[in-house]
């Protein structure tokens, strides 16, 4: 590692309203390293990155690049210094081609001032080849997978001759294979001498990729560690200010599984190439479904919740065959679904906690004249704020202003309020910080202990293994294998997901 700091932040602070998002942060990033910045949601890592990207300016303190004090007043200024950022929410034009996106707003022109498509296509081909990305410059961006879109954004920064590329939560929406692909690209960037700042809270991945790790907590710098000389527990301790026990709470033993609650027989959904799938689940059981993107887990959940119709097969709940034609019907029969994307499918982001929490149970909160009783809304909301430990000063706070973990708890509250018998959890800890994750795991165990049946999946393999009693591995819409809890390792699970049968 070179000794002279490439980027140096000195006593940087940033306030929003009266709240310090960053408080006297000082640390250095070396040239050509992969430098991870980790912290819980709301710890200030995003603000930190936005300072470097020129989105915000620090209120006090200075940023030095190669020893020179620089003022990054706007994103254009930051780009001139060679700093580019790839945000978690990608910024692409879906109706335009890959090449058009890479050269958006910087179109190459020919002698007559027209757009030089040929040159842009060639340059795009070159830069994609450098990253070993197999995409046509002429392809439309819209239908591409999320991982490919991200690759295009990275290619764009590379084409702009960036010296520093900031990746903000780059793999929060990626599955394991896509993540591996991303790591490959990040290492290629490093090999070219580009400095990569990698913001994440997925520690496993940070440890797999980063040279050094900087921890922030509550807007304060906690330390920079060499990855080789530190451990995950040490980083977690830095992130949450205390050391965590085992990362999965222990199940209270003796909770015998109840009767068979759910029988799925030969379930098929032709347009999604799903099935035939058969399995049973008992009261108090947590069943995990593992599978790569497109393996059928999402599709299975959608059919079970009535979002997509099943074309054949049978769903039997407590010995009663069910026809689940719409989410409303599924809901009335005791199903609940925590969707994958809480922003898009789960919550009304511009609504308060109270409104989100009670939306599904308004019929039970009516007072005289059939009008909504605000007292009952308040009581219900307060109950769930307390039960799930949602950190807020008021039930009227907009969920958009909550951290990811608290938003997820509101989403859980919304569906728990319906008193479901079968709860489907599609990636329940996506974009959630370590502390909240642990609480959500504990909640799942508690719900199972009360006799609820949980069907879950996760973008993180160890979460499925840590949480579920039984794991079904799906591939091409069918159940490939079944594991009992504790019977398998993560490596074996990953192999099974990839459709291989060997043990890893």
């Amino acid at each position, binding site marked *: 590692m070179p000794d002279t700091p490439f980027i140096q932040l000195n006593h940087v602070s940033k306030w929003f309203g009266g709240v310090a998002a960053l408080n006297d942060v000082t640390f250095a990033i070396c040239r050509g390293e992969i430098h991870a910045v980790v912290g819980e949601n709301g710890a200030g890592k995003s603000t930190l990155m936005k300072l470097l990207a020129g989105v915000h300016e620090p209120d006090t303190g200075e940023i030095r690049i190669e020893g020179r004090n620089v003022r990054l007043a706007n994103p254009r200024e930051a780009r001139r210094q060679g700093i580019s950022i790839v945000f978690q929410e990608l910024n692409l034009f879906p109706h335009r081609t890959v090449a058009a996106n890479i050269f958006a707003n910087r179109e190459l022109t020919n002698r007559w001032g027209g757009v030089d498509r040929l040159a842009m296509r060639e340059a795009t081909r070159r830069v994609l080849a450098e990253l070993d990305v197999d995409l046509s410059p002429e392809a439309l961006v819209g239908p591409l997978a999320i991982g490919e879109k991200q690759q295009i954004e990275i290619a764009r920064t590379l084409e702009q001759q960036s010296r520093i590329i900031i990746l903000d939560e780059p793999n929060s929406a990626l599955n394991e294979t896509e993540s591996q692909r991303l790591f490959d690209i990040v290492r290629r960037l490093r090999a070219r001498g580009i400095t990569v700042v990698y913001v994440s809270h997925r520690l496993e991945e940070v440890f797999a990729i980063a040279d050094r790790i900087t921890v922030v907590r509550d807007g304060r710098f906690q330390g920079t560690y060499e990855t080789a000389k530190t451990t995950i527990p040490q980083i977690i301790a830095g992130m949450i200010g205390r050391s965590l026990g085992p990362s999965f709470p222990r199940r209270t033993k003796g909770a015998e599984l109840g009767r068979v609650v759910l029988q799925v027989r030969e379930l098929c959904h032709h347009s999604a190439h799903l099935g035939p799938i058969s399995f049973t689940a008992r009261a108090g059981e947590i069943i995990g479904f593992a599978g790569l993107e497109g393996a059928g887990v999402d599709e299975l959940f959608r059919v079970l919740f009535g979002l997509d119709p099943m074309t054949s097969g049978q769903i039997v709940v407590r010995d009663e065959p069910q026809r689940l034609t719409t989410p*409303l019907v599924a809901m009335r029969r005791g199903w609940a679904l925590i969707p994958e994307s809480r922003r898009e499918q789960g919550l009304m982001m511009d609504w308060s906690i109270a409104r989100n929490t009670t939306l599904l149970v308004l019929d039970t909160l009516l007072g005289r004249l059939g009008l909504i009783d605000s007292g009952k809304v308040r009581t219900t909301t307060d109950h769930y704020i307390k039960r799930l430990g949602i950190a807020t000063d008021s039930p009227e706070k907009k969920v958009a202003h909550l951290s990811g973990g608290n938003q997820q708890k509101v989403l859980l509250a919304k569906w728990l309020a319906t008193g479901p018998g079968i709860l489907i959890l599609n990636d329940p800890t996506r974009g959630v910080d370590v502390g909240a994750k642990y609480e959500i795991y504990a909640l799942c165990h508690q719900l199972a202990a009360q006799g609820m049946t949980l069907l879950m999946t996760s973008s993180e393999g160890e979460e499925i293994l840590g949480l579920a009693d039984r794991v079904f591995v799906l591939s091409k819409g069918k159940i490939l294998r079944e594991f009992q809890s504790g019977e398998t390792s993560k490596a074996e699970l990953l192999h099974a997901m990839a459709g291989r049968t060997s043990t890893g």
Partner: protein
Amino acid sequence: MHNPKSGKYNRAWRRLLAFDEIGVIVALLTVCALLWISVGDAFVQPTNLFQVARQASSYGIMAVGMVLLLSMGEIDLSVGATLTLVNIVTAVSLREGMPMPFAIVLGLVTGATCGLVNGLLGVLLRIPTIIVTLGTMSVFRGFALVLSKATPIGHFPKNNLLFDLGSGNLLGVPTSVWVMLAVGLAGHVVLGCTAFGWRAQAIGSNPQAARFSGIPLDRYRIAAMTIMGLVASVAGVMELAFLQSGSPTTGQGYELYVIASAIIGGTALTGGSGSVVGGILGALLIAVIRNGLVLLEFSAYWGTVVTGAVIIAAVAIGGLVKRQ
């Protein structure tokens, strides 16, 4: 700005200014103050103020329905045409000797049907309501022209209670203003205190999440469009009651005033929430401006220009004040 103390101060201000109606209230007070200063008593006379309120009631009544629609992420451009059609249908029925209550009911049914048709077309053909109602706006107005043969409809049987009420006062306040307040109260309760209202706003806030929440989107869309048609028909009947004649040109361009009233009142075009109170205040603001321009002896042509400019200004003020 960036120290904790002023942060607390800012927050107090923000709470005070954070309600959706702030823009329209500021604009309404400003315009009223300016008119009071420039024209004096002629403006603040009770007869003039009631005249303003009555004018506001035509689009104020419809703004209530529009707030509901906008908060759901829908819109209806055919409200003015629906008003005209209802106006003509009721007038023709009266002229042909239909008893007054039946004529009114027929008018209301006509309006509700217009809304229902809008909703059904949107849902069944999968067309955005802005496009559907762009078309039906012309269709409904066309029907009104056909029915009326493009001439005003008068010569009603004498001593009609509807006309006595329509042009009369109740406790000194024009009847149509009472109707606006009643419709407004109903709309406010539906939007703020019923499961229907909350779920409708949920659709506007995030349609996909609403679907995942088991809300039947199509049924809600059709219901809301039907309610809008019904509300427009109430305005159509009141218009007939006041003018005492059916006119195929009444209601022309009202859709713009109605949508503007709702938006000035702080209801976002993007859906998710809405303010009925703001919508009615928005209608009042438009009526005050139009009244003021008459009092200031502007030509009616300039009045049209100024009305448009003030709509933009009021929305901008609301946005600016909230962003501060």
